[in-house]
């Protein structure tokens, strides 16, 4: 379990989001949906980020700079080096016949890399505003909706759904496509099973998302069964 210090290549603006591009060195890109712990300068704890783009020389992370950690990450510039640990967790299963990628907001972060690995299948993306929707350019073959329209309007039967987005979106997707693969997020201090901070309800028990996920199968969390990542499951 090694952290690598990666050089910041640059930070691109994509609407309100930022694409943090790091010199890759020896770091494996892993399976789409896996994540990395990125240590923001001056902060105590690293932040979990799924990989957005992988080229031969770079790893790219799409970040919504909404808090002190994410703001510190995107404030890094050329000459800065960031500690990076990963890839961690369980990514998407790629043995799917008719993939459909579904993303909402900053949850589209893992989809560009996923799309590339799956040969650019169709994607449906939803965003809060037109400005946020600029990030759709990162995903090939994407159909885009902006609120008040919801991405679930674009779901089509007969597809293998691979989704990442806010919790209400994932629950709605799971309701429509119970076999969907869903990438969840939770606050994490470590990303490798040490802190127990990322516990969510899985199979009726509070379990660590970093160990069990972050990609989980939709059928374990259909609303009403009480078995999904369910914040109401607690001692």
């Amino acid at each position, binding site marked *: *379990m*090694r*952290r690598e210090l990666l050089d910041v290549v640059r930070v691109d603006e994509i609407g309100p989001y930022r694409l943090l591009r790091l010199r890759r060195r020896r770091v494996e890109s892993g399976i789409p949906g896996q994540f990395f*712990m990125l*240590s923001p300068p001056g*902060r*105590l*704890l*690293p932040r979990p980020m799924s990989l957005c783009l992988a080229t031969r020389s770079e790893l790219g992370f799409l970040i919504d700079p909404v*808090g*002190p*950690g994410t703001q510190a990450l995107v404030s890094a510039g050329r000459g800065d080096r960031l*500690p990076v*640990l990963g890839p961690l967790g369980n990514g998407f299963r790629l043995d799917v016949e008719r993939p459909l990628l579904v993303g909402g907001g900053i949850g589209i972060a893992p989809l560009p890399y996923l799309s590339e690995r799956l040969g650019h299948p169709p994607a449906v993306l939803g965003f809060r505003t037109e400005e946020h929707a600029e990030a759709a350019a990162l995903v090939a073959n994407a159909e885009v909706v902006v609120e008040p329209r919801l991405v679930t309007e674009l779901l089509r039967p007969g597809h293998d759904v691979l989704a990442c987005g806010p919790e209400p979106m994932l629950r709605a997707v799971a309701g429509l496509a119970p076999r969907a693969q869903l990438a969840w997020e*939770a*606050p*994490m*201090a*470590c990303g*490798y*099973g*040490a*802190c*127990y*901070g*990322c*516990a*969510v309800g899985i199979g009726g*028990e*509070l379990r660590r998302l970093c*160990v069990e996920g972050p990609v989980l199968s939709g059928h374990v969390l259909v609303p009403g069964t009480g078995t999904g990542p369910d*914040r*109401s*499951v*607690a*001692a």
Partner: protein
Amino acid sequence: MILNASGCLDALAAPEVARSLDAYVTKTVTPLPRQGNEPVRIAETGAGMLNSIGLANAGIDRFAADVLPRLAELGVPIWVSVGGFSAQDYARLCAVLDGRDEVAVIELNVSCPNVASPEEEVVAIVSTARAATSKPLYAKLSPAVPEVGAAAGAAARAGADGLTLVNTIRGLALDERTLEPKLASGPGGLSGPALRPVALAAVFAAHRATELPIVGVGGIETGRHALEAIAAGAAAFALGTVLFADPEAPVRVRDELEGEAAALGFETPLAAYGAAHGEHPPKPLRQVA
């Protein structure tokens, strides 16, 4: 001697990190299985971290049957942290572990800052546990008491073989926008850099109050921090919050500690033992189990 703080490393999830330690301390085991607290469970603060995990664990029976044999395969001495809600809980936990060769030390998670008399609580738990096992017993104490030295002395008289200092102290963080607590449980345990001077003061006080060996815990991130814990009276130290960001911290801190000690003219890090007290002659070093 470098350990992890209880609850800051899962040796089965990260065995190579556990093997970089001189002993592995388990997450606290309770008599019954516990799911732990509702999320959100963690939050970063200005100079530390809050957690409210709620002692999530499989319970002593499953721990003893399934987890302990797998931990033993790591080849690192195993310290089992136990916690309960009454002195009898601790007795039962210690009785189960007493006959297990895999267990090097039992650490009693004694952290009840809100009881009327912390010393009486420590005495009740340690003496009851003492009667239930001949294993080395370390009492992990809260620094949130009027006199840590008095609690340390109480643990010594009740039969503890050593002390782990300190556990987290209570803190609260509020959401930037809603001003509601960030953690679902409200307050949580504060760890990290903010805890370091608190831990140092507790080790300093306990070293004066007792002859027991002390494991220093609280905000140690670098070799310098470890050296200060040793100077205050710790014969060993544990890494906690730093492990979350840096799984290689044990290796790094061990290297840094050698360098920091040498830079100040100490032949070994433990040659600085008690140096903060200016003792002439110094207290003899009590090696940790």
